[in-house]
Every structure is written in structure tokens, then in C-alpha cells.
């Protein structure tokens, strides 16, 4: 009996060690596989960007393999000295700066109305606002172009900034509304009792609580306006009012295929600010998307 017990006691230990070792081995193999997969996918996805960076340091007309013969800083020098990209950069910065401030504020203001106040017609208005998301941009651009040209707003930053004053975008209002609705009402009730009117309550109580979404909307405003291409293409026609995206486009049209490396440099340059922004606000972006999806 005692022998049996000892044998019985021994076997589980031995089996455990083996199991653990093979489990560990399986885990290591799994880890290796995972790293390999991650690296392969990364190489695949990053490859174009790397090509762009390499090309930006090369002279035109040489294939990638000949990098050592053809390396040059000329493209980058041309980028900064040639006025073709500096003024558009300035224009783009102005537009983006204005929108990054205006869009979160405007959309949170309107969303506050839909989330916290009661007025007849609120639901209808909200539905009508959401419906505008279905309207294709092409429909909007034609008459607005004619309107702006009659107002003389073409070739200025106004067409790209003023419309965003009026609500800041349906999707942003939607996001804010979702978020504000999920905030506890107690703080605002307290403020109401203290005699604060709606505007005060919005500015002092709700807005600070919305920080995550504010950042999310601001970041989106940044990326959307920084890379926006069709709208500036239509509304800005004279050379001194181009945005960066349009400047790069105009220098692409009709130029021979072998003369593109300056544009590669411009492209790298144009990708850097959004990359930095994403780096800083990564977590925010992922969290912000959840808010929109809760109600679908």
C-alpha cells in the first residue's frame, strides 16, 4: 500500500515537469512564430514608406539598387529653398490650426444640445443632421464653389474653415453626443442648482469632462485637414493659395516619370506631422472609436 502511494505520488510530479517543459517549448515556438508573423507583416506594410524615404535621398533616373551612387541631399534642399512648398505649408498649417481648435469646440457645443437639453424637434434635427452624412461630397462642392466664387472666398482659407464653424461635422457631433450621454448627470445638476445657465454648465462642467473625445476630435481634425486634397484642389486655384497636398499634386501632373524624387521628399515631409500626432495620441484614437460604436 505504501509503495503504491509513493508511486502514485511520484508520477504526477514527473508528468508535471514534462508537461511544463513541453508547454514552455510550445510557448516559445508560439512566440517565435508570432514575432515572425509580426515582422513579416511590418516589412510588407512599411516597405513603401521606406522606399519613399530612400528615394527622397536619391538623384532622379536611378533605380533603387544604385543608392550608393546616386545619393544626394539635393531633393531636400530643393524642397526647402524652392518656394513651391513652403508657402503651401504655411497655408496648410493655418487651416489645420484653425480647424483643430474650431471643430472640437463647435461640435461639442452642438452635441451638448442634443445630449443634455430638451426641445421640441431635437430628435428630428438630429436625424436630419445624421442624414447629411449620406450626401456625397461631390454634390456639395459644386454649388458651394459657385457660392464661394460669388462671395470672393476662393483662393483663401475661408472655404476650408468657415463651414466647420457651423457644427464641426456631423460625425463629431454624433461622437460627442454619445460621450456626453454617458457622463453622470450629477455634476451638472449640482451646477444647475448653483444657478449656472446652460452655457456655463457646458463650459465649466461638461467640456472639461470630455477631454478624451476633445482630443480625439482634434486629432481627427488635424489628420483630415492636413491630408485633405479634393476640397483645396477645387477651392484654391491660384498658386499662392495652394495647400501642401495640392502643391504636391500640381507638381505631379504631366511631369516625366523620371523626375519625381523631389516629390518623394515632399511626401516624407508631409507624412511626418500626422505620424508624430498619432504617436502622441495613439491610445486616445483607439478609445475614441469605441465611443462611436457603442450604439452603432
Amino acid at each position, binding site marked *: 500500500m505504501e509503495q503504491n502511494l509513493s508511486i502514485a505520488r511520484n508520477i504526477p510530479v514527473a508528468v508535471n515537469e514534462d508537461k511544463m517543459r513541453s508547454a514552455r517549448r510550445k510557448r516559445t515556438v508560439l512566440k517565435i512564430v508570432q514575432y515572425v508573423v509580426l515582422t513579416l507583416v511590418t516589412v510588407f506594410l512599411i516597405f513603401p514608406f521606406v522606399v519613399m524615404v530612400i528615394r527622397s535621398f536619391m538623384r532622379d*533616373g536611378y533605380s533603387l539598387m544604385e543608392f550608393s551612387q546616386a545619393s544626394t541631399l539635393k531633393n531636400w534642399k530643393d524642397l526647402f529653398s524652392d518656394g513651391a512648398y513652403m508657402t503651401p505649408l504655411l497655408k496648410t498649417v493655418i487651416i489645420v490650426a484653425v480647424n483643430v481648435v474650431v471643430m472640437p469646440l463647435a461640435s461639442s457645443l452642438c452635441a451638448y444640445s442634443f445630449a443634455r437639453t430638451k426641445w*421640441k*424637434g431635437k430628435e*428630428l*434635427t438630429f436625424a436630419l443632421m445624421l442624414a447629411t452624412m449620406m450626401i456625397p461630397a461631390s454634390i456639395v462642392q459644386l454649388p458651394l464653389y*459657385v*457660392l464661394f*466664387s*460669388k462671395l*470672393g472666398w*476662393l*483662393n483663401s482659407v475661408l472655404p476650408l474653415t468657415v463651414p466647420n464653424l457651423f457644427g464641426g461635422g456631423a460625425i463629431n457631433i454624433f461622437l460627442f453626443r454619445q460621450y456626453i450621454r454617458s457622463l453622470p448627470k450629477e455634476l451638472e445638476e449640482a451646477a444647475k442648482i448653483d444657478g449656472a445657465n446652460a452655457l456655463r454648465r457646458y463650459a465649466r462642467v461638461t467640456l472639461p469632462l470630455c477631454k478624451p473625445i476633445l482630443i480625439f476630435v482634434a486629432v481627427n481634425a488635424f489628420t483630415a485637414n492636413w491630408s485633405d486634397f479634393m476640397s483645396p484642389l477645387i477651392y484654391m*486655384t*491660384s*498658386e*499662392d493659395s*495652394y495647400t501642401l497636398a495640392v502643391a504636391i499634386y*500640381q507638381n505631379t501632373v504631366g511631369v*516625366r*516619370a*523620371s523626375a519625381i524624387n523631389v516629390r518623394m521628399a515632399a511626401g516624407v515631409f508631409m507624412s511626418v506631422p500626422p505620424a508624430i500626432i498619432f504617436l502622441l495620441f495613439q491610445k486616445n484614437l483607439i478609445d475614441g472609436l469605441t465611443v462611436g460604436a457603442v450604439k452603432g
Partner: protein
Amino acid sequence: MLKRMSAFGACALLVLSVMLGFTACFEVDNPNLDENGQPNQIVTEVDYDITATLKVAYKSENSEKAIVQSLADGFKKIFKNVTVELVAYNDGTANAITKLYNAKTMPDIFMSDSFSMLTLSATKGLLLNFTPYIEQEIEAGNFALEDYYDAYMRLGQIGFNGAQCMIPRSADRVVCHINKKLIREVEEETGKDILSKIHNGWTWEEFYEVCDLLKEGSTFKKGGRFLLDGEIKWEAVWNPVFKSYGVEYFDKDGNVAIDSEATKQALDHFKYWVSQGYCASPTSGMSADFEYGKGVFYFNSMAASQEIKTLIEAYKDTDDAFTVENASNTYDVVTMPVKADNPLIGAGAAGYCGYAGSENPALVWQFMKYLLTKDGQNAIADSGVNYVPVRKDMADYTDSENNHWGKGYENINLQAYVYKSGELLEDGSYNDDWNCNTDYFNVKGSKYAVDLNAGVSTFVTSYAAGSKSYDTVLNTLKKTWDAALKKR
């Protein structure tokens, strides 16, 4: 609920109608214009001390800025108190000008090319019609149309034979730019003489012979390097070839008449360039890269000085670097090859148009008049771009004292730009034989010109690329033309 909806709806409609009214009420009629949108009074006498501002828009490419600056400076020597304000645009001309017109910020004068001018001519009150001014000046004895190449003046007219709406600043004839350095390299290698076979007035057969000789050289023998940048897409290249084969686009009743044996031959003419390897297929994205110093021939109307500058840039840090002084070692120009039995060469035309609603149309005309004088034409050459003057009496480029376009380029065969195009004959008349304008669309109307041309460009390039049959491209062309003519 229903009441709320209708209240909202009524509000919306109110705002809407306000908006629509808003946009409509900006139309203010200019009292200086008659019902055709042209100035009421044609004034050709302008006080030289007048104080005014002229806004001139130029297309921001190549050296247009230098040209218009030079013209402005020369103009200011005559009209001392006039300020000339220069503005750049960087889009298709018709596009850019239409946008400026809609924004009510039209310049008084703007640079244009002949086809953009045709497109813009569809809008009443946009283009200033210079014909009444010209007629008045002729009556007063201050102007003579015979001084100018008829073909190029016509390129500035609506339909190329009507109202003069654009004043051509130069006679941009299509020529064949040559890279002599590459030819000499092949000559050294094969021992055969090639350069002597190239001369003004050479035919397509001679051109092909030269090309074949060049292809014996190692540089061009294998695939990958091409001899010719043919600009097949461009109407100034395909139209003269079509015409020289006798192609008829529309018959006199306006019916499509392009399906013919002559058309097939003309198309095969272009396909030959590609199939023989002289020219890269237009759809392959490759080219002979003449402007990078890698190709031998380039069919274009660009001024010699510009091509030389481009080649200097291309060869800058290599053993073949050269300067303007010894440019004739590396570069030359010759007439575009022609068909032996029906020689025709095309031209582009760029020039300046005036705005009919300008505050000072008389001054606009004075600017154009200055442009057409010897001083004006020399001013263009002085800016560093030696386009051919549109004045016949300036064709002699060797007389660089009086005709600045030859200054510094006496060793270049600038004769190619004027060969058989306005040269003075013994009987005192001017030879205009070889000039050929793209005006087949007149039977249909100027406003279709651009779309019809686009159809033919696709017609030629897709056939030359070799992937489609004649019937396919003809079908596509007919459908494109049909759609273009039915647009409203």
C-alpha cells in the same frame, strides 16, 4: 409633430430662397459693355501720360514670368505712369480663367494658348475682341496685318478665321530639336556619316533613314533607350501628318468623314515610330528623355534657348557639360520632317487675351499693339527666351542687332523656325505654304474644339501603342465625338 416639421421646413425654404436670391443678385451689368459683352466705344488713341493699373495674369510655367516681366518693363517705357501688376495662375488656362471670372477678379490681360482661348470664347463678355481695334488702326494707317504671319494671327482668332481674341506673342512652330552629341557618338562608333543627312525640309523617309543609322549604334541598339520624343498626343504633331495624308475629319456638311484609307495610313505612320522602336509607346510611361540628354530627337515648338538651358542642366555635372557659347556642339534644331508630296508643319500659339469687361480696354489694346511692334518682340527675346517673332520682317535671325531672338544663337539653325513659313520670296510675297492649323472643328463650332481634339489624341495614341485595332479605335473615336457634340 407635423406642425414642427412644417415650421422647420418653412424656415429651411425661407433660408434657401434667400440663399438662391443672394447668389443671383450679384449680377451687375457693366454699363460700358454693349449687348455682346464688348466695349461700347473702340478707342485707339490713349494719352501716354495716363495713370492706370493693368493686371496681367500669366501661366506659371517655363519662363512665362520673365517674358511678361520684360514686356511690362518695355511697356512702361512708353506709358510711364501705368503700373503693371503680374499675377500667376497654375492650372489649365480655361479652368483658371473661368474661376477668376466667376470670382469677379479677372485680370485685364491674361496669357493663353489658342485652344484655351477657343474654350473661353463660349462665354459672352469674357474675351475682348480686338478686330474692331485692328480695323480702326488700319484705317488710321498705324497698323498693317501683312506685317504678321497670317497663320499665327489666325491661331488667335475664333475658329481660327474670325474675331481676333488673342494676340499671338510668337510663332511657335513645331521643330525637331536634335542632340548632336549622341549622334556624333554613333557616328564615331559606326563610322557612318549621319549629321549631313539632317537638313531643313527633310522628309519622313530621310528621318527614318537617320533613325535606322542611329539604331546601329550600341547606345540605341538594344531596347530601353529611345530616339524620339514624338509628342504623339499633341494636335500640332498629328494634325499636319493627317492633313498631309489627306485625311478629312468632317465633310463640309458636318458629317464624320474620318474613316478612310488616308486615316489608316496616317495612323500607321505613327504606329511605325513605335513598332520600329524609334519612339516609346505613349502608354508605357517611358520616353526618350530628350530633356535629360538621353534622347536624340524632340518634336516641340519650344524656343531654342529653353532647350539649350534644359540640356545644360541635364549635362551639368558630367563630362559633357557645356555652356551657351558652345551650345552648337551639342544641340541644334531642324525642321520637322514632312511628307514629300504634301509638306505641312503645325504650330502652337501662345499669346495674350484681353478681358472685355476691363476698366481700360483701350489700354489693353495698347499693350497688345506694343507686343506686336519690333520693340515688343525684341523685349520677349531679351527676357532670355528666343521665340520666333510673329513679325515677318524679323525673320532674319542672323541680324541680331535688330532681331534679338538670334542674339547669341547665331550658330544654331534657327532657320528651322521660319523655313517655308513666311520667308520672303523674290516677288515680294511671303511663303506660307507649309503652315497648317488645326481647324477642322470649325464646321462644328469652336466650343467643341478641345473635346474633339481629346478624342483624336486618344485615337492616335491608342492605335500607336499597338494594342488596339483600327476598327476599335475608330469606334471609340466616333462614340467620343458623338458624346462631345451632344453635350449641353
